[in-house]
């Protein structure tokens, strides 16, 4: 099933880095998300968008995973030529993932 059915997501920007939070609707789904949403899976899914490394933090207390994607905003929010310079809509690209 799509990640969209199990979790919600919000992105944020810092310079040329993008933060992506994945929050399970149900706490009991967190282990599945931790298993499926590896750094490698994300790297593959966001190939061509995220050019730098990806870091992952698991937050048990709120049933969430935080990804930090480096070099993800086409030189950064202030100088990018892209339409969505902040990467705000990218949260929904993650929700397309099959888990």
């Amino acid at each position, binding site marked *: 099933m799509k990640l969209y059915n199990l979790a919600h997501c919000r992105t944020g920007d810092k310079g040329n880095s993008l933060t992506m939070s994945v929050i399970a609707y149900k706490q009991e789904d967190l282990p599945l998300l931790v298993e499926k949403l590896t750094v490698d899976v994300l790297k593959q899914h966001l190939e061509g968008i995220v050019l730098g490394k990806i870091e992952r933090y698991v937050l048990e207390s709120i049933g969430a995973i935080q990804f*930090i994607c480096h070099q993800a905003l086409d030189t950064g929010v202030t100088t990018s030529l892209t339409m969505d310079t902040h990467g705000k809509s990218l949260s929904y690209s993650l929700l397309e993932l099959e888990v």
Partner: protein
Amino acid sequence: MRIGVGTGFAGDRIEPAEILLEKGNLDYLVLECLAERTIALAQKRKLANNNLGYDPLLEKRMRSLLPKLANKKTRIISNMGAANPIAGAEKIISIAQELNINVKVAIVTGDDVLSKLTDNYDIWESGKKLGDYEEILSANAYIGAKALLDALKSDAQIIITGRVADPSLFVAPMIHEFGWSLDELDKIAQGTVVGHLLECAGQLTGGYFADPGIKDIEGMATLGFPFADIDSDGTAIFSKVEGTGGELSLATMKEQLLYEVLNPHAYYTPDIIADFSKVKFEYLKKDHIKVSGVSAVGKPETLKVSIGYNAGLIGEGEITYAGPNAVPRAKLAGEIIRTRIGHLYSDFRVDLIGLNSAHRKEFRDTDPYEIRLRIAGKTNNPNYASLVGEEVEALYTNGPAGGGGARKNVVELVGIVSTFIDEQEVVLNTLFKECNSNETV
């Protein structure tokens, strides 16, 4: 004590702040109006006119809020001063005089560190030196809660600043009201999460959250902004004014907790390095959430500085193709433009809006009815910048069939990079201006 937030960014709506001030029974109303780039743009306005450089909506906001502030205990704290807090305060005083309202404004300065930086400073993002960047427009240090304490000790009802770190705008009144020492790190960390959650205003109450049928939020048109009732240990109960739209739930709080956080175990502000990873959210009743469990992992030794520089120009052009075979016609148009002028630009994009522009690639195969072609090129040459739109417009008679609605645009780019400065280099100052019985002191 109760702190509400009336703006989450420079362009935010004004009505929720009016409602908070009228019905929120607040001790403090924070108006957070500075994003990363906002202050550099303000610096450009100040360079053009020394009386400007504060938030463009300051006048509109203060005309609305000043009459509602009179005879209330609520104090306003805002970074609407942007690049020019003194001019911003003078503007507030002139509005107060005009409306015949008594008010005292405290101005906190010291964030502008342009004169302190030398070419040798390391640029964090690129590994280059500051001297490698042409035409530096601004350098503003993120100053902390400490900067606001003298202003808070005074009887000023409005405190206006420039680049104070967003959470610090909220932490400062907590330090002031509860008498925390700056070494009570866990309390300041807990206060910092309260400020971090509040700082984007509507994003905590269902704004930027709603997804029809999946994450439904009621009353989006009348979205209310949040406030927090904060205890002397920094734990807080978040809520919003009864009757306003939106929702304050565990889900909205979780999304905002992680927003723009680069490391949940070490969230840096000028005041603290906080650990958000063990935060505890408790649902008390509808639209009431308690937050606790945040502690400190340390204290930063330097302040971050945002440097604005002239990053050249972007030329843009757009045109629409619709109906059968719209995508191939738009793609052909894009190829034509790329062949004609693409080589003139340091960076060049061809986007098909409705197909691949938002995420720079196609996640699904689709056959949209209409496609908007968008061309963008980056350059330092003003002629090349305007050429992008001219060439796109020329597709009318030099491109594929059926293109319509061409638009063109050139924007000046202000880039932002960061460095770090020793806290001792930053000289804080607090000034006062007052409108009293129609007399300015």
